[in-house]
Protein backbone atom coordinates (compact mmCIF):
# COMPACT_ATOMS: atom_id res chain seq x y z
CA UNK A 1 0.00 0.00 0.00
CA UNK A 2 3.00 2.24 0.56
CA UNK A 3 3.62 2.16 -3.19
CA UNK A 4 0.46 4.18 -3.73
CA UNK A 5 1.95 7.18 -1.92
CA UNK A 6 4.87 7.15 -4.30
CA UNK A 7 2.77 7.06 -7.46
CA UNK A 8 3.34 10.71 -8.42
CA UNK A 9 7.06 10.08 -8.79
CA UNK A 10 6.76 6.48 -9.98
CA UNK A 11 4.62 7.72 -12.84
CA UNK A 12 7.75 9.36 -14.25
CA UNK A 13 10.52 7.24 -12.75
CA UNK A 14 8.91 4.01 -13.96
CA UNK A 15 9.40 4.90 -17.63
CA UNK A 16 12.77 6.47 -16.77
CA UNK A 17 14.01 3.13 -15.44
CA UNK A 18 12.31 1.26 -18.25
CA UNK A 19 14.18 3.17 -20.96
CA UNK A 20 17.67 1.82 -20.15
CA UNK A 21 16.24 -1.67 -19.72
CA UNK A 22 14.55 -1.40 -23.10
CA UNK A 23 17.86 -0.54 -24.74
CA UNK A 24 19.17 -3.89 -23.54
CA UNK A 25 16.36 -5.83 -25.19
CA UNK A 26 17.62 -6.95 -28.57
CA UNK A 27 14.51 -8.73 -29.86
CA UNK A 28 12.27 -6.13 -31.40
CA UNK A 29 8.98 -7.79 -30.48
CA UNK A 30 10.12 -7.96 -26.89
CA UNK A 31 11.16 -4.29 -26.91
CA UNK A 32 7.77 -3.36 -28.30
CA UNK A 33 5.87 -5.46 -25.78
CA UNK A 34 7.93 -4.06 -22.93
CA UNK A 35 7.28 -0.49 -24.10
CA UNK A 36 3.57 -1.24 -24.30
CA UNK A 37 3.55 -2.61 -20.75
CA UNK A 38 5.38 0.45 -19.44
CA UNK A 39 3.00 2.77 -21.19
CA UNK A 40 -0.07 0.95 -19.92
CA UNK A 41 1.43 1.02 -16.43
CA UNK A 42 1.86 4.78 -16.68
CA UNK A 43 -1.71 5.08 -17.98
CA UNK A 44 -3.18 3.11 -15.08
CA UNK A 45 -1.08 5.17 -12.71
CA UNK A 46 -2.37 8.42 -14.20
CA UNK A 47 -5.97 7.23 -13.96
CA UNK A 48 -5.47 6.45 -10.28
CA UNK A 49 -3.77 9.80 -9.67
CA UNK A 50 -6.43 11.83 -11.43
CA UNK A 51 -9.14 9.98 -9.58
CA UNK A 52 -7.42 10.63 -6.25
CA UNK A 53 -6.89 14.28 -7.09
CA UNK A 54 -10.53 14.75 -8.01
CA UNK A 55 -11.63 13.23 -4.72
CA UNK A 56 -9.11 14.54 -2.24
CA UNK A 57 -7.35 17.48 -3.86
CA UNK A 58 -3.79 18.06 -5.05
CA UNK A 59 -1.03 15.60 -4.11
CA UNK A 60 2.43 16.88 -3.27
CA UNK A 61 5.52 14.68 -3.26
CA UNK A 62 8.89 15.84 -1.95
CA UNK A 63 11.66 14.13 -3.91
CA UNK A 64 14.75 13.34 -1.87
CA UNK A 65 12.82 14.02 1.32
CA UNK A 66 13.59 17.74 1.09
CA UNK A 67 10.51 19.86 1.63
CA UNK A 68 9.26 22.10 -1.14
CA UNK A 69 11.42 25.11 -1.85
CA UNK A 70 14.64 23.28 -0.90
CA UNK A 71 14.12 20.16 -2.95
CA UNK A 72 12.24 19.33 -6.10
CA UNK A 73 8.54 18.85 -5.61
CA UNK A 74 6.11 16.86 -7.70
CA UNK A 75 2.62 18.20 -7.48
CA UNK A 76 -0.37 16.65 -9.19
CA UNK A 77 -3.61 18.60 -9.37
CA UNK A 78 -6.60 18.41 -11.69
CA UNK A 79 -4.91 20.25 -14.56
CA UNK A 80 -1.68 18.31 -14.81
CA UNK A 81 -3.37 15.08 -13.70
CA UNK A 82 -5.54 15.50 -16.78
CA UNK A 83 -2.51 16.14 -19.01
CA UNK A 84 -0.70 13.10 -17.55
CA UNK A 85 -3.76 11.06 -18.44
CA UNK A 86 -3.81 12.41 -22.01
CA UNK A 87 -0.11 11.71 -22.59
CA UNK A 88 0.04 8.22 -21.15
CA UNK A 89 -3.36 7.31 -22.61
CA UNK A 90 -2.46 8.37 -26.15
CA UNK A 91 0.86 6.60 -25.82
CA UNK A 92 -0.87 3.38 -24.82
CA UNK A 93 -3.24 3.59 -27.78
CA UNK A 94 -0.53 4.51 -30.28
CA UNK A 95 1.85 1.69 -29.30
CA UNK A 96 -0.22 -1.27 -30.56
CA UNK A 97 -0.55 0.67 -33.79
CA UNK A 98 3.15 1.52 -33.82
CA UNK A 99 4.37 -2.07 -34.10
CA UNK A 100 3.40 -2.71 -37.72
CA UNK A 101 3.98 0.88 -38.68
CA UNK A 102 7.57 0.86 -37.40
CA UNK A 103 8.22 -2.53 -39.00
CA UNK A 104 7.48 -0.93 -42.35
CA UNK A 105 9.01 2.47 -41.84
CA UNK A 106 12.14 1.97 -39.70
CA UNK A 107 15.10 -0.38 -40.36
CA UNK A 108 14.72 -3.57 -38.40
CA UNK A 109 17.93 -3.51 -36.37
CA UNK A 110 17.12 -0.10 -34.92
CA UNK A 111 13.88 -1.01 -33.23
CA UNK A 112 15.10 -1.45 -29.68
CA UNK A 113 16.82 1.97 -29.83
CA UNK A 114 13.68 3.41 -31.36
CA UNK A 115 11.48 2.10 -28.55
CA UNK A 116 14.02 3.35 -26.02
CA UNK A 117 13.75 6.82 -27.53
CA UNK A 118 9.98 6.48 -27.45
CA UNK A 119 10.00 5.64 -23.73
CA UNK A 120 12.38 8.53 -23.05
CA UNK A 121 10.07 10.87 -24.89
CA UNK A 122 7.17 9.62 -22.79
CA UNK A 123 9.29 10.06 -19.64
CA UNK A 124 10.17 13.63 -20.55
CA UNK A 125 6.61 14.61 -21.35
CA UNK A 126 5.29 13.09 -18.11
CA UNK A 127 8.16 14.71 -16.20
CA UNK A 128 7.52 18.25 -17.39
CA UNK A 129 3.86 17.79 -16.58
CA UNK A 130 4.21 16.41 -13.08
CA UNK A 131 6.95 18.66 -11.73
CA UNK A 132 6.41 21.75 -9.64
CA UNK A 133 9.94 23.06 -10.11
CA UNK A 134 10.71 25.56 -12.86
CA UNK A 135 14.22 24.30 -13.61
CA UNK A 136 13.26 20.66 -13.43
CA UNK A 137 10.84 21.49 -16.24
CA UNK A 138 13.82 22.41 -18.41
CA UNK A 139 15.67 19.16 -17.69
CA UNK A 140 12.74 16.96 -18.59
CA UNK A 141 11.83 19.19 -21.50
CA UNK A 142 15.24 18.34 -22.91
CA UNK A 143 14.79 14.62 -22.20
CA UNK A 144 11.63 14.71 -24.29
CA UNK A 145 13.08 17.04 -26.93
CA UNK A 146 16.27 15.07 -27.59
CA UNK A 147 14.33 11.85 -27.94
CA UNK A 148 11.79 13.59 -30.16
CA UNK A 149 14.54 14.68 -32.57
CA UNK A 150 15.63 11.06 -32.77
CA UNK A 151 12.07 9.86 -33.34
CA UNK A 152 11.54 12.39 -36.13
CA UNK A 153 14.84 11.48 -37.76
CA UNK A 154 13.72 7.84 -37.72
CA UNK A 155 11.60 8.69 -40.75
CA UNK A 156 14.78 8.94 -42.83
CA UNK A 157 14.35 5.48 -44.32
CA UNK A 158 11.18 6.66 -46.04
CA UNK A 159 12.28 10.18 -46.91
CA UNK A 160 15.60 11.86 -46.27
CA UNK A 161 13.81 15.12 -45.51
CA UNK A 162 13.17 13.65 -42.06
CA UNK A 163 16.81 14.47 -41.29
CA UNK A 164 16.57 18.15 -42.15
CA UNK A 165 13.23 18.34 -40.36
CA UNK A 166 14.82 16.87 -37.23
CA UNK A 167 17.79 19.23 -37.51
CA UNK A 168 15.61 22.32 -37.82
CA UNK A 169 13.50 21.12 -34.95
CA UNK A 170 16.67 20.63 -32.90
CA UNK A 171 17.88 24.17 -33.58
CA UNK A 172 14.56 25.86 -32.90
CA UNK A 173 13.75 23.58 -29.98
CA UNK A 174 17.09 24.35 -28.36
CA UNK A 175 16.63 28.08 -28.87
CA UNK A 176 13.20 27.72 -27.26
CA UNK A 177 14.60 25.77 -24.33
CA UNK A 178 17.43 28.29 -23.88
CA UNK A 179 14.94 31.15 -23.85
CA UNK A 180 13.02 29.25 -21.22
CA UNK A 181 16.22 28.91 -19.17
CA UNK A 182 16.92 32.65 -19.48
CA UNK A 183 13.40 33.34 -18.29
CA UNK A 184 13.74 31.00 -15.32
CA UNK A 185 17.08 32.66 -14.48
CA UNK A 186 15.46 36.08 -14.42
CA UNK A 187 12.66 34.77 -12.21
CA UNK A 188 15.22 33.25 -9.89
CA UNK A 189 17.10 36.51 -9.79
CA UNK A 190 14.01 38.41 -8.76
CA UNK A 191 12.58 35.89 -6.32
CA UNK A 192 15.35 33.55 -5.15
CA UNK A 193 13.32 30.43 -5.71
CA UNK A 194 12.51 27.84 -8.37
CA UNK A 195 9.50 26.11 -6.82
CA UNK A 196 6.32 27.09 -8.63
CA UNK A 197 4.12 27.64 -5.59
CA UNK A 198 6.91 29.55 -3.89
CA UNK A 199 7.41 31.61 -7.05
CA UNK A 200 3.71 32.41 -7.15
CA UNK A 201 3.79 33.53 -3.52
CA UNK A 202 6.85 35.71 -4.07
CA UNK A 203 5.98 37.17 -7.45
CA UNK A 204 2.81 38.72 -6.05
CA UNK A 205 4.35 41.14 -3.54
CA UNK A 206 7.13 42.21 -5.93
CA UNK A 207 4.83 43.33 -8.75
CA UNK A 208 5.91 45.64 -11.56
CA UNK A 209 9.53 44.49 -11.72
CA UNK A 210 11.10 44.75 -15.16
CA UNK A 211 13.22 41.70 -14.43
CA UNK A 212 10.07 39.67 -13.81
CA UNK A 213 8.32 41.05 -16.87
CA UNK A 214 11.23 40.20 -19.15
CA UNK A 215 11.59 36.81 -17.51
CA UNK A 216 7.93 36.11 -18.12
CA UNK A 217 8.25 37.24 -21.74
CA UNK A 218 11.22 34.93 -22.32
CA UNK A 219 9.42 31.96 -20.81
CA UNK A 220 6.38 32.65 -22.99
CA UNK A 221 8.51 32.98 -26.16
CA UNK A 222 10.44 29.82 -25.31
CA UNK A 223 7.25 27.87 -24.74
CA UNK A 224 5.64 29.40 -27.83
CA UNK A 225 8.50 27.96 -29.88
CA UNK A 226 7.94 24.57 -28.27
CA UNK A 227 4.20 24.60 -28.78
CA UNK A 228 4.49 25.99 -32.33
CA UNK A 229 2.44 29.13 -31.85
CA UNK A 230 2.19 31.09 -35.09
CA UNK A 231 4.63 32.53 -36.34
CA UNK A 232 7.08 30.29 -34.48
CA UNK A 233 5.59 27.13 -35.98
CA UNK A 234 8.06 26.61 -38.82
CA UNK A 235 9.59 23.44 -37.42
CA UNK A 236 6.27 21.67 -37.02
CA UNK A 237 4.97 20.90 -40.55
CA UNK A 238 8.15 19.17 -41.72
CA UNK A 239 8.68 17.35 -38.45
CA UNK A 240 5.15 15.93 -38.48
CA UNK A 241 5.22 15.16 -42.20
CA UNK A 242 8.44 13.17 -42.34
CA UNK A 243 8.41 11.43 -38.95
CA UNK A 244 7.19 7.81 -38.98
CA UNK A 245 3.38 7.62 -38.85
CA UNK A 246 3.18 6.35 -35.29
CA UNK A 247 5.60 9.04 -34.08
CA UNK A 248 3.52 11.75 -35.73
CA UNK A 249 0.36 10.43 -34.13
CA UNK A 250 2.03 10.34 -30.71
CA UNK A 251 3.70 13.75 -30.96
CA UNK A 252 0.75 15.56 -32.48
CA UNK A 253 -1.47 14.31 -29.70
CA UNK A 254 0.91 14.88 -26.78
CA UNK A 255 4.03 17.05 -27.23
CA UNK A 256 2.36 20.37 -27.95
CA UNK A 257 -0.20 19.60 -25.23
CA UNK A 258 2.47 19.43 -22.57
CA UNK A 259 3.86 22.76 -23.76
CA UNK A 260 0.40 24.35 -23.68
CA UNK A 261 -0.03 23.05 -20.16
CA UNK A 262 3.26 24.70 -19.14
CA UNK A 263 2.11 27.96 -20.67
CA UNK A 264 -1.10 27.72 -18.60
CA UNK A 265 0.92 26.95 -15.50
CA UNK A 266 3.26 29.88 -15.90
CA UNK A 267 0.63 32.36 -17.05
CA UNK A 268 -1.92 31.64 -14.39
CA UNK A 269 -0.45 29.84 -11.43
CA UNK A 270 2.77 31.85 -11.26
CA UNK A 271 2.00 35.16 -12.93
CA UNK A 272 -1.74 35.19 -12.37
CA UNK A 273 -1.66 37.70 -9.59
CA UNK A 274 1.76 39.22 -9.60
CA UNK A 275 2.86 40.82 -12.79
CA UNK A 276 0.79 43.59 -14.28
CA UNK A 277 2.30 42.30 -17.46
CA UNK A 278 -0.03 39.33 -17.95
CA UNK A 279 -3.10 41.06 -19.31
CA UNK A 280 -1.38 43.25 -21.93
CA UNK A 281 0.98 40.48 -22.98
CA UNK A 282 -1.84 38.03 -23.49
CA UNK A 283 -4.37 40.47 -24.87
CA UNK A 284 -2.12 42.36 -27.25
CA UNK A 285 0.24 39.61 -28.30
CA UNK A 286 -1.23 36.16 -27.77
CA UNK A 287 -4.75 36.78 -29.03
CA UNK A 288 -3.76 38.24 -32.43
CA UNK A 289 -1.17 35.50 -32.87
CA UNK A 290 -3.73 32.85 -31.95
CA UNK A 291 -6.18 34.24 -34.51
CA UNK A 292 -3.49 34.57 -37.15
CA UNK A 293 -2.42 30.99 -36.47
CA UNK A 294 -6.04 29.75 -36.80
CA UNK A 295 -6.36 31.23 -40.27
CA UNK A 296 -2.81 30.87 -41.57
CA UNK A 297 -2.72 27.23 -40.45
CA UNK A 298 -6.11 26.35 -41.96
CA UNK A 299 -5.43 28.21 -45.21
CA UNK A 300 -2.05 26.54 -45.60
CA UNK A 301 -3.70 23.18 -44.89
CA UNK A 302 -6.08 23.66 -47.83
CA UNK A 303 -3.19 23.89 -50.29
CA UNK A 304 -1.26 20.80 -49.21
CA UNK A 305 -1.17 17.70 -51.38
CA UNK A 306 0.61 15.65 -48.71
CA UNK A 307 -2.12 14.84 -46.21
CA UNK A 308 0.21 14.46 -43.25
CA UNK A 309 1.42 17.96 -43.95
CA UNK A 310 -2.17 19.11 -44.29
CA UNK A 311 -2.96 17.79 -40.81
CA UNK A 312 0.27 19.33 -39.48
CA UNK A 313 -0.85 22.76 -40.64
CA UNK A 314 -4.23 22.03 -39.17
CA UNK A 315 -2.43 21.45 -35.86
CA UNK A 316 -0.97 24.95 -36.10
CA UNK A 317 -4.53 26.21 -36.42
CA UNK A 318 -5.74 24.09 -33.51
CA UNK A 319 -2.95 25.41 -31.29
CA UNK A 320 -4.38 28.81 -32.19
CA UNK A 321 -7.69 27.74 -30.61
CA UNK A 322 -5.94 26.64 -27.44
CA UNK A 323 -4.04 29.90 -27.07
CA UNK A 324 -7.20 31.84 -27.90
CA UNK A 325 -8.86 30.14 -24.93
CA UNK A 326 -5.99 31.26 -22.73
CA UNK A 327 -6.20 34.82 -23.97
CA UNK A 328 -9.77 35.26 -22.69
CA UNK A 329 -8.29 35.20 -19.17
CA UNK A 330 -11.49 33.68 -17.82
CA UNK A 331 -12.50 30.38 -16.27
CA UNK A 332 -14.60 29.49 -19.29
CA UNK A 333 -11.71 30.31 -21.61
CA UNK A 334 -9.36 28.13 -19.56
CA UNK A 335 -11.94 25.34 -19.61
CA UNK A 336 -12.08 25.65 -23.38
CA UNK A 337 -8.30 25.34 -23.59
CA UNK A 338 -8.13 22.40 -21.22
CA UNK A 339 -10.98 20.62 -22.98
CA UNK A 340 -9.37 21.22 -26.33
CA UNK A 341 -6.10 19.76 -25.06
CA UNK A 342 -7.94 16.50 -24.47
CA UNK A 343 -10.25 16.68 -27.46
CA UNK A 344 -7.58 17.66 -29.92
CA UNK A 345 -5.41 14.78 -28.74
CA UNK A 346 -8.30 12.40 -29.52
CA UNK A 347 -9.08 13.81 -32.95
CA UNK A 348 -5.54 14.40 -34.21
CA UNK A 349 -4.39 11.07 -32.84
CA UNK A 350 -7.20 9.35 -34.75
CA UNK A 351 -6.61 11.33 -37.94
CA UNK A 352 -2.87 10.72 -38.04
CA UNK A 353 -3.37 7.04 -37.22
CA UNK A 354 -5.90 6.72 -40.06
CA UNK A 355 -3.33 8.26 -42.38
CA UNK A 356 -0.78 5.83 -40.96
CA UNK A 357 -3.10 2.96 -41.98
CA UNK A 358 -3.36 4.44 -45.47
CA UNK A 359 0.41 4.79 -45.72
CA UNK A 360 0.87 1.22 -44.56
CA UNK A 361 -1.10 -0.07 -47.54
CA UNK A 362 -0.64 2.59 -50.22
CA UNK A 363 2.92 3.74 -49.32
CA UNK A 364 1.87 7.32 -49.88
CA UNK A 365 -0.32 9.93 -48.29
CA UNK A 366 -0.43 12.23 -51.30
CA UNK A 367 -4.00 13.13 -52.06
CA UNK A 368 -4.05 11.80 -55.62
CA UNK A 369 -2.85 8.40 -54.57
CA UNK A 370 -5.95 8.13 -52.39
CA UNK A 371 -8.36 8.18 -55.28
CA UNK A 372 -11.29 5.91 -54.44
CA UNK A 373 -9.45 4.48 -51.49
CA UNK A 374 -12.64 4.40 -49.40
CA UNK A 375 -13.85 1.43 -51.40
CA UNK A 376 -10.70 -0.50 -50.61
CA UNK A 377 -10.19 0.65 -47.05
CA UNK A 378 -13.70 1.48 -45.83
CA UNK A 379 -12.97 1.26 -42.10
CA UNK A 380 -9.86 3.39 -42.27
CA UNK A 381 -11.58 6.10 -44.25
CA UNK A 382 -14.66 5.99 -42.05
CA UNK A 383 -12.35 6.62 -39.10
CA UNK A 384 -10.78 9.51 -40.97
CA UNK A 385 -14.18 11.02 -41.80
CA UNK A 386 -15.56 10.78 -38.26
CA UNK A 387 -12.49 12.30 -36.67
CA UNK A 388 -12.43 14.86 -39.48
CA UNK A 389 -15.96 15.86 -38.54
CA UNK A 390 -14.75 16.14 -34.99
CA UNK A 391 -11.97 18.42 -36.14
CA UNK A 392 -14.53 20.63 -37.85
CA UNK A 393 -16.64 20.72 -34.70
CA UNK A 394 -19.79 18.86 -35.72
CA UNK A 395 -22.24 18.16 -32.84
CA UNK A 396 -21.98 14.75 -31.14
CA UNK A 397 -18.21 14.81 -31.49
CA UNK A 398 -15.62 16.16 -29.06
CA UNK A 399 -14.71 18.94 -31.48
CA UNK A 400 -18.13 20.45 -30.90
CA UNK A 401 -17.59 20.55 -27.13
CA UNK A 402 -14.32 22.48 -27.56
CA UNK A 403 -15.85 24.98 -29.93
CA UNK A 404 -18.89 25.34 -27.69
CA UNK A 405 -16.81 26.37 -24.70
CA UNK A 406 -14.61 28.59 -26.80
CA UNK A 407 -17.64 30.41 -28.14
CA UNK A 408 -19.18 30.59 -24.64
CA UNK A 409 -16.01 32.25 -23.42
CA UNK A 410 -16.24 34.76 -26.26
CA UNK A 411 -19.95 35.29 -25.51
CA UNK A 412 -19.17 36.12 -21.89
CA UNK A 413 -17.05 38.99 -23.10
CA UNK A 414 -19.48 39.83 -25.89
CA UNK A 415 -16.67 39.50 -28.38
CA UNK A 416 -18.90 38.99 -31.43
CA UNK A 417 -16.06 39.40 -33.90
CA UNK A 418 -14.19 36.56 -32.26
CA UNK A 419 -17.22 34.29 -32.51
CA UNK A 420 -17.48 35.07 -36.22
CA UNK A 421 -13.77 34.33 -36.65
CA UNK A 422 -14.00 31.02 -34.78
CA UNK A 423 -16.89 29.94 -36.99
CA UNK A 424 -15.14 31.13 -40.14
CA UNK A 425 -11.99 29.18 -39.35
CA UNK A 426 -14.12 26.07 -38.74
CA UNK A 427 -15.44 26.48 -42.28
CA UNK A 428 -11.86 26.34 -43.54
CA UNK A 429 -11.53 22.97 -41.79
CA UNK A 430 -14.62 21.83 -43.71
CA UNK A 431 -12.83 22.64 -46.96
CA UNK A 432 -9.69 20.65 -46.32
CA UNK A 433 -11.46 17.66 -44.84
CA UNK A 434 -13.95 17.68 -47.72
CA UNK A 435 -11.09 17.56 -50.25
CA UNK A 436 -10.05 14.23 -48.79
CA UNK A 437 -13.59 12.88 -48.65
CA UNK A 438 -14.19 13.89 -52.26
CA UNK A 439 -11.09 12.10 -53.53
CA UNK A 440 -11.48 9.05 -51.34
CA UNK A 441 -15.20 8.46 -51.80
CA UNK A 442 -16.28 10.05 -55.08
CA UNK A 443 -13.38 9.24 -57.37
CA UNK A 444 -12.74 5.88 -58.95
CA UNK A 445 -9.99 3.72 -57.50
CA UNK A 446 -6.70 3.83 -59.34
CA UNK A 447 -7.02 1.05 -61.93
CA UNK A 448 -4.95 -2.03 -61.34
CA UNK A 449 -4.16 -1.23 -57.75
CA UNK A 450 -5.23 -3.82 -55.26
CA UNK A 451 -5.20 -2.44 -51.76
CA UNK A 452 -6.79 -4.14 -48.80
CA UNK A 453 -7.97 -2.87 -45.44
CA UNK A 454 -5.28 -2.09 -42.87
CA UNK A 455 -4.38 -4.85 -40.37
CA UNK A 456 -6.51 -5.06 -37.24
CA UNK A 457 -3.59 -4.15 -34.97
CA UNK A 458 -3.61 -0.73 -36.61
CA UNK A 459 -7.31 -0.39 -37.21
CA UNK A 460 -8.44 -1.19 -33.67
CA UNK A 461 -6.34 1.52 -31.95
CA UNK A 462 -7.50 4.03 -34.54
CA UNK A 463 -11.10 3.13 -33.88
CA UNK A 464 -10.57 3.24 -30.15
CA UNK A 465 -9.79 6.93 -30.53
CA UNK A 466 -12.66 7.43 -32.97
CA UNK A 467 -15.08 5.94 -30.47
CA UNK A 468 -13.60 8.15 -27.77
CA UNK A 469 -14.24 11.09 -30.08
CA UNK A 470 -17.90 10.20 -30.16
CA UNK A 471 -18.27 9.04 -26.57
CA UNK A 472 -16.79 12.19 -25.04
CA UNK A 473 -18.69 14.22 -27.61
CA UNK A 474 -22.04 12.80 -26.53
CA UNK A 475 -21.33 12.66 -22.80
CA UNK A 476 -18.92 15.43 -21.91
CA UNK A 477 -19.86 15.51 -18.22
CA UNK A 478 -16.65 13.84 -17.06
CA UNK A 479 -14.28 15.92 -19.19
CA UNK A 480 -16.02 19.20 -18.41
CA UNK A 481 -15.97 18.42 -14.70
CA UNK A 482 -12.22 17.79 -14.83
CA UNK A 483 -11.68 20.84 -17.04
CA UNK A 484 -13.61 23.04 -14.62
CA UNK A 485 -11.58 21.80 -11.67
CA UNK A 486 -8.39 22.26 -13.66
CA UNK A 487 -9.28 25.79 -14.65
CA UNK A 488 -10.27 26.74 -11.13
CA UNK A 489 -7.14 25.11 -9.77
CA UNK A 490 -4.90 26.98 -12.18
CA UNK A 491 -6.36 30.34 -11.25
CA UNK A 492 -7.16 29.48 -7.64
CA UNK A 493 -3.59 28.85 -6.51
CA UNK A 494 -2.67 32.35 -7.52
CA UNK A 495 -5.53 34.02 -5.70
Amino acid at each position, binding site marked *: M*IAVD*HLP*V*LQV*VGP*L*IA*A*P*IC*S*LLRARNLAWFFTLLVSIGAFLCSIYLLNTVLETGPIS*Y*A*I*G*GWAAPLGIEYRVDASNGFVLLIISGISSVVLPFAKRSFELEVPENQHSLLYTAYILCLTGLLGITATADAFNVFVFLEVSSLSTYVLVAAGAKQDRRALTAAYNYLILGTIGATFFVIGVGLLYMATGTLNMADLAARVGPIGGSRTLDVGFAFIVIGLALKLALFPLHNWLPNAYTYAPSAVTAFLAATATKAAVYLLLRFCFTIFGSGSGFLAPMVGLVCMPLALAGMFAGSLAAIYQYNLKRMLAYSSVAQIGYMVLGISFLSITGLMATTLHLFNHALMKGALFMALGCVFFRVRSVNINDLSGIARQMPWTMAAFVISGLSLIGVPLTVGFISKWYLISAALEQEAWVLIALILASSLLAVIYIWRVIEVAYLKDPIPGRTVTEAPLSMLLPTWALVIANIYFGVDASLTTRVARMAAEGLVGVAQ
Partner: protein
Amino acid sequence: MRHHLILRVVSKLLIPFILLYALYVQFHGDFGPGGGFQAGVIFAAAFVLYALIFGVQAARRAFPDSWLAILIPLGVLIFAGTGIASLLLGGTFLDYDVLASTPTGGQHLGILVVEFGVGVTVTAVMIAIFFAYAGRTHEIQDDDW
Protein backbone atom coordinates in the same frame (compact mmCIF):
# COMPACT_ATOMS: atom_id res chain seq x y z
CA MET B 1 49.51 8.97 -36.80
CA ARG B 2 50.74 5.50 -36.17
CA HIS B 3 54.37 6.25 -36.90
CA HIS B 4 54.84 9.11 -34.42
CA LEU B 5 57.04 7.36 -31.90
CA ILE B 6 57.18 10.28 -29.48
CA LEU B 7 53.40 10.59 -29.45
CA ARG B 8 53.04 6.89 -28.76
CA VAL B 9 55.49 6.85 -25.91
CA VAL B 10 54.23 10.04 -24.31
CA SER B 11 50.61 9.03 -24.53
CA LYS B 12 51.36 5.59 -23.16
CA LEU B 13 52.84 7.28 -20.13
CA LEU B 14 50.10 9.83 -19.95
CA ILE B 15 47.00 7.71 -20.29
CA PRO B 16 47.32 5.87 -16.94
CA PHE B 17 47.67 9.20 -15.19
CA ILE B 18 44.63 10.59 -16.95
CA LEU B 19 42.65 7.55 -15.86
CA LEU B 20 43.93 7.93 -12.31
CA TYR B 21 42.98 11.59 -12.34
CA ALA B 22 39.51 10.68 -13.56
CA LEU B 23 39.11 8.35 -10.60
CA TYR B 24 40.30 11.09 -8.25
CA VAL B 25 37.79 13.54 -9.72
CA GLN B 26 35.08 10.90 -9.46
CA PHE B 27 35.53 10.18 -5.78
CA HIS B 28 36.81 13.51 -4.57
CA GLY B 29 33.79 15.53 -5.67
CA ASP B 30 32.58 15.82 -2.08
CA PHE B 31 35.54 17.92 -1.10
CA GLY B 32 36.70 19.84 -4.14
CA PRO B 33 35.34 20.56 -7.54
CA GLY B 34 34.45 17.52 -9.60
CA GLY B 35 32.02 14.66 -9.67
CA GLY B 36 30.68 11.95 -11.87
CA PHE B 37 30.14 13.99 -14.97
CA GLN B 38 33.58 15.55 -15.07
CA ALA B 39 35.21 12.24 -14.25
CA GLY B 40 33.30 10.53 -17.03
CA VAL B 41 34.40 13.14 -19.53
CA ILE B 42 38.06 12.80 -18.50
CA PHE B 43 37.87 9.03 -18.58
CA ALA B 44 36.42 9.20 -22.08
CA ALA B 45 39.07 11.72 -23.09
CA ALA B 46 41.77 9.19 -22.19
CA PHE B 47 40.17 6.71 -24.56
CA VAL B 48 39.81 9.26 -27.29
CA LEU B 49 43.51 10.00 -26.95
CA TYR B 50 44.28 6.30 -27.12
CA ALA B 51 42.12 5.96 -30.22
CA LEU B 52 43.76 8.91 -31.92
CA ILE B 53 47.27 7.60 -31.36
CA PHE B 54 46.84 3.86 -31.68
CA GLY B 55 43.90 3.76 -34.06
CA VAL B 56 40.18 3.35 -33.55
CA GLN B 57 40.34 -0.41 -34.08
CA ALA B 58 42.72 -0.84 -31.16
CA ALA B 59 40.52 1.37 -28.98
CA ARG B 60 37.49 -0.62 -29.95
CA ARG B 61 39.25 -3.80 -28.93
CA ALA B 62 40.13 -2.21 -25.59
CA PHE B 63 36.55 -1.12 -25.04
CA PRO B 64 34.28 -3.42 -27.05
CA ASP B 65 30.80 -2.36 -28.15
CA SER B 66 29.19 -5.03 -26.01
CA TRP B 67 30.56 -3.33 -22.88
CA LEU B 68 29.25 0.01 -24.03
CA ALA B 69 25.81 -1.40 -24.70
CA ILE B 70 25.68 -2.53 -21.07
CA LEU B 71 27.44 0.42 -19.41
CA ILE B 72 25.33 3.14 -21.06
CA PRO B 73 22.07 1.99 -19.46
CA LEU B 74 23.82 0.71 -16.32
CA GLY B 75 24.69 4.20 -15.02
CA VAL B 76 21.10 5.40 -15.32
CA LEU B 77 19.94 2.23 -13.58
CA ILE B 78 22.42 2.72 -10.73
CA PHE B 79 21.17 6.26 -10.18
CA ALA B 80 17.49 5.47 -10.44
CA GLY B 81 18.03 2.24 -8.51
CA THR B 82 19.39 4.26 -5.58
CA GLY B 83 16.15 6.19 -5.64
CA ILE B 84 14.12 3.00 -5.66
CA ALA B 85 16.24 1.58 -2.83
CA SER B 86 15.56 4.61 -0.65
CA LEU B 87 11.91 4.26 -1.50
CA LEU B 88 11.89 0.61 -0.45
CA LEU B 89 13.68 1.47 2.79
CA GLY B 90 10.84 3.78 3.73
CA GLY B 91 11.97 7.18 2.50
CA THR B 92 10.77 9.10 -0.53
CA PHE B 93 12.45 8.74 -3.90
CA LEU B 94 16.17 9.67 -3.69
CA ASP B 95 15.94 10.29 0.07
CA TYR B 96 19.43 9.08 0.99
CA ASP B 97 18.86 9.47 4.74
CA VAL B 98 17.46 5.96 4.98
CA LEU B 99 20.28 4.26 3.11
CA ALA B 100 22.56 3.87 6.13
CA SER B 101 22.22 3.74 9.89
CA THR B 102 22.67 7.51 10.27
CA PRO B 103 21.21 10.16 7.96
CA THR B 104 24.63 11.67 7.36
CA GLY B 105 26.11 8.30 6.50
CA GLY B 106 23.17 7.69 4.18
CA GLN B 107 23.72 10.98 2.44
CA HIS B 108 27.41 10.21 1.93
CA LEU B 109 26.63 6.77 0.56
CA GLY B 110 23.84 8.05 -1.66
CA ILE B 111 25.95 10.86 -3.14
CA LEU B 112 28.82 8.46 -3.78
CA VAL B 113 26.63 5.93 -5.53
CA VAL B 114 24.66 8.33 -7.72
CA GLU B 115 27.83 10.17 -8.77
CA PHE B 116 29.24 6.80 -9.73
CA GLY B 117 26.14 6.11 -11.80
CA VAL B 118 26.53 9.44 -13.59
CA GLY B 119 30.19 8.69 -14.22
CA VAL B 120 29.46 5.28 -15.75
CA THR B 121 26.83 6.54 -18.17
CA VAL B 122 28.81 9.63 -19.16
CA THR B 123 31.99 7.65 -19.83
CA ALA B 124 30.18 5.05 -21.88
CA VAL B 125 28.08 7.54 -23.83
CA MET B 126 31.05 9.74 -24.67
CA ILE B 127 33.10 6.79 -25.88
CA ALA B 128 30.13 5.44 -27.83
CA ILE B 129 29.59 8.80 -29.50
CA PHE B 130 33.24 9.01 -30.45
CA PHE B 131 33.22 5.49 -31.88
CA ALA B 132 30.02 6.24 -33.77
CA TYR B 133 31.64 9.21 -35.49
CA ALA B 134 34.90 7.37 -36.04
CA GLY B 135 33.11 4.33 -37.40
CA ARG B 136 31.76 6.27 -40.33
CA THR B 137 35.00 7.57 -41.70
CA HIS B 138 38.18 6.13 -43.04
CA GLU B 139 41.20 6.60 -40.77
CA ILE B 140 42.13 10.26 -40.66
CA GLN B 141 45.22 10.74 -42.77
CA ASP B 142 48.02 13.01 -41.62
CA ASP B 143 47.87 15.16 -44.72
CA ASP B 144 44.17 15.77 -44.12
CA TRP B 145 45.15 18.40 -41.65
